[in-house]
C-alpha cells in the first residue's frame, strides 16, 4: 500500500488523508468516525487532554481490529489513525475510515472499530480540568476489565 493503515501519530490528523487510504473503484460507501475532544463531560469542563500510548503495541492492536473487521465484513477496507500528546477542545483524537461496496457493512464495521479501540488498544487519556487532573479508566464505564482481561478475541456483534 505504501501507506500505514494503522497509525499512532503526534501531529494533527487530517481526516482526508485517512479517507484516501480506503478509497477504491469497487467501493460505494465510506464511513468515517472522527473522535474529537469535548469541552464538557458529565458537567465538568475540560481544559485539555493528554493521550499516551504504548505505541508499538497500539498499532499492532489497531491492525488486529482491522483484521477482525475484514473477517466479519469481507470486502471492507479499514484505516485508523489515533493521535497522542496534548489535545485541545475540538482537536481530533481518532479517525476511523471504513470503505465497503455497500453501506450497511461500512456503518457496522466502523462502529465495531471504535468499540474495540476502547477495549483493547493501549492508549490512555488524562483529563485536565480547572481544578485538577486525572487519568481516565476505560470509557466503557468499567472500573477494571470485566473478566480480568480485555476481550482479546473480538466477540460477536
Amino acid at each position, binding site marked *: 500500500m505504501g501507506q500505514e493503515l494503522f497509525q499512532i501519530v503526534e501531529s494533527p490528523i487530517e481526516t482526508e488523508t485517512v479517507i484516501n487510504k480506503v478509497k477504491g473503484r469497487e467501493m460505494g460507501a465510506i464511513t468515517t468516525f472522527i*473522535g474529537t475532544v469535548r469541552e464538557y463531560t458529565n458537567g465538568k469542563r475540560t481544559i485539555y487532554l493528554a493521550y499516551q500510548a504504548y505505541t508499538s503495541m497500539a498499532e499492532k492492536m489497531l491492525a488486529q481490529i482491522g483484521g477482525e473487521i475484514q473477517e466479519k465484513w469481507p470486502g471492507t477496507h479499514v484505516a485508523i489513525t489515533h493521535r497522542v500528546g496534548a489535545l485541545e477542545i475540538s482537536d481530533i483524537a481518532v479517525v476511523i475510515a471504513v470503505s465497503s461496496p455497500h453501506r450497511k457493512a461500512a456503518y457496522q464495521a466502523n462502529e465495531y472499530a471504535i468499540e474495540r*479501540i*476502547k477495549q483493547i488498544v*493501549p492508549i*490512555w487519556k488524562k483529563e485536565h480540568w480547572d481544578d485538577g487532573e486525572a*487519568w481516565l479508566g476505560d470509557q466503557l464505564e468499567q472500573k*477494571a476489565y470485566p473478566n480480568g482481561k480485555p476481550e482479546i478475541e473480538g466477540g460477536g456483534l
Partner: protein
Amino acid sequence: MITVLLFAQLQEEARTATLTINEDVLTVNQLKNQLINAYQLYQVNECMIAINEEYALDIDEIKPGDTVAVIPPVSGG
C-alpha cells in the same frame, strides 16, 4: 532480569516509565505481586500484562529478554 514498561497513572506513581525486576523467570501473577509488594503499585490488580506486545494470562511465563508492559484499563478513542 526483566524490564517492565509502565504507563499512565502507574508511570506517575512509580515516577518512572521503566522498572527492572531481578528475576530470571516468573509468571505474570508473580510479577504482579512483586509490583505490588516492592513498589506499592496496587492498581496493578486492575491491569493487564502484555508480554512482547501480546496480552498475557496470569499463568503465562515471562522469560529473560521479554518486553513486559503493565496495561491499565485503556481509554483511547
